[in-house]
């Protein structure tokens, strides 16, 4: 199927028949998944279901043994490396919050702003007032204006998670992959994070991997349940949580 403008699919993210095995262990098994532009998708599933490996494939860290991975209908992600994929407009938040701890919140965002990533550009770059505006906008979204000049390492766990999401936003990506954003957060923080992601979803496509079912319910979006590297069930949170296989392998335990 080829669409008029040369796109092979209208989906923002398209995975079809993807296989990955590590030393004989089938981490991803005939995985097919489609995320539409502007959609927010929640991915759930037990440990070892292949959620993080799927993220690794999309972001170029892991090469699939076979299968198609298309971004924005035309770009084959399996041929690109991390830096190229990031430049295309895919941002990734890690499971463990990963920020540049010895640098200020502001510098963390400055490093993330979408611009030339080359060595020469970085060597000769000057700060300009426009940067401050862009950083201000992100800080407002992630609600961290008050800690702008603090070292990222001094932030609370929840604040680090938000800062990392802010770093993704500063990259101005089309697609955000967010791995367990509320792990270790308090209930209030979890609620705020759900609000934040919904806000981000207004103009960006988001894929969230999360274990916290309250949080997934709060997002109120289509849910995909993975198991043993393949899609077990897909649909609304109610449909998925009533699925017998899902209860058996994931929720029921």
């Amino acid at each position, binding site marked *: 199927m080829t669409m008029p403008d040369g796109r092979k699919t209208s989906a923002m993210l398209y995975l079809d028949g993807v296989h990955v095995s590590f030393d004989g262990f089938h981490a991803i098994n005939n995985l097919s998944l489609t995320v539409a532009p502007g959609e927010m998708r929640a991915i759930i599933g037990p440990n070892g279901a292949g959620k993080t490996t799927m993220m690794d494939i999309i972001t170029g860290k892991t090469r699939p043994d076979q299968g198609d991975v298309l971004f924005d209908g035309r770009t084959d992600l399996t041929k690109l490396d991390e830096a190229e994929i990031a430049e295309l407009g895919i941002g990734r938040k*890690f499971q463990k919050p990963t920020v540049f701890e010895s640098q200020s919140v502001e510098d963390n965002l400055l490093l993330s702003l979408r611009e030339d990533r080359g060595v020469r550009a970085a060597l000769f770059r000057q700060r300009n007032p426009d940067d401050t505006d862009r950083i201000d906008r992100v800080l407002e979204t992630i609600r961290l204006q008050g800690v702008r000049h603090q070292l990222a390492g001094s932030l609370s766990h929840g604040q680090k998670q938000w800062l990392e999401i802010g770093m993704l936003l500063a990259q101005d990506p089309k697609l955000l992959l967010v791995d367990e954003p509320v792990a270790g957060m308090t209930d209030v923080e979890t609620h705020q994070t759900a609000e934040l992601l919904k806000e981000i979803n207004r103009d960006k496509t988001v894929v969230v991997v999360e274990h916290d079912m309250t949080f997934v319910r709060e997002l109120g979006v289509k849910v995909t349940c993975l198991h043993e590297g393949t899609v077990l069930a897909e649909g609304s949170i109610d449909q998925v949580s009533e699925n017998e296989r899902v209860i058996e392998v994931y929720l029921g335990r």
Partner: protein
Amino acid sequence: MKPFLLTGTLNRSATIFLAIVATAGVLLPALNLLTPDASALHVPTYLVSLFGKYVCYAILALSIDLIWGYCGILSLGHGAFFALGGYAMGMYLMRQIGTRGVYADPVLPDFMVFLNWKSLPWYWHGFDMFWFAALMVVLVPGLLAFCFGWLAFRSRVTGVYFSIITQAMTYALLLAFFRNDFGFGGNNGLTDFKDILGFNVQADGTRAALFAASCVALAASFLICRAVVDSKLGKVLVAIRDAESRTRFLGYRVESYKLFVFTLSACIAGVAGALYVPQVGIINPSEFAPANSIEAVIWVAVGGRGTLIGAALGAVVVNYAKTVFTSGPLAPYWLFLLGALFVLVTLLMPKGLLGTWHAWYGRRKPAPTAGATPSDETEFAGEIAKPHMAE
């Protein structure tokens, strides 16, 4: 480590550091040349050269701190770049000997005549010209670092694996330069130098000028490193050090950044080696010894990595201690002492002399702010850098 927290104060420290280097660069030669031998203020020539050696080590330490302190690349083979710069200068100095050698051959250095070589090997051509040798001082280490780094960083060799292969690199060069047929004087290396740019290398005036030149090179290297770490590129380097994969997923090509800074660092190390050779009067394969590179890393750890000034300070302090110890009855125990120093610094002062001082000073001072500059900074820098100047 919080180098950027200290940025505000470091700018002040940087000025003081440069002032000390400049003062030393003028004062020591002046006291050597302008005071009579009997005067209490007279600095003997051997001391000028000894301090010149320390200054070269300080430049080497800066180059290591640039990659280790800021980008987390622990090279245990940086002595190789230092030695290559040294050999390039040594080749120039050999060609200047001319007919004054033992065998009085106008072109071939003595060791080649001794080996019965009839003509100059191709790679010795051009070294009779200072500008060419000076270019090679930077280019040869830079090129080696570029090729080595290109292969290593592209394959994502990091951490201890990288350290081990840099050790292997310097060891391989050590073995190669030991061979007579390699064409660099075998285990004797290059020595018996006569002239540099037409001046006698043994003369007091030349020694003083070489010391001053080393101080200029130290100041220039410091300014280059400072400019790099203060730029956005410097922030990317720290980002790579602290969270390499995060940096990669932000779209930075980590290997390019590492390659740039590693190559720059090797070039600086080469300059240090080139200034070192005429002051000590010899370059031989032992400069490639893996232990030398490890020792240089210890200077940086002792001084405080990720501070630049601390690295230079560490090099001077540790080498001054080495001179004192190895010339006294404790000489056989120097290596034990050095090892103990490294262990103690790692355990008790992980931030090194400078970092520990800053932390202690920060605690003592009520409510320090990142932007404010402690006014006593002057006192501190002068105190620590004393051995550098006055001894």
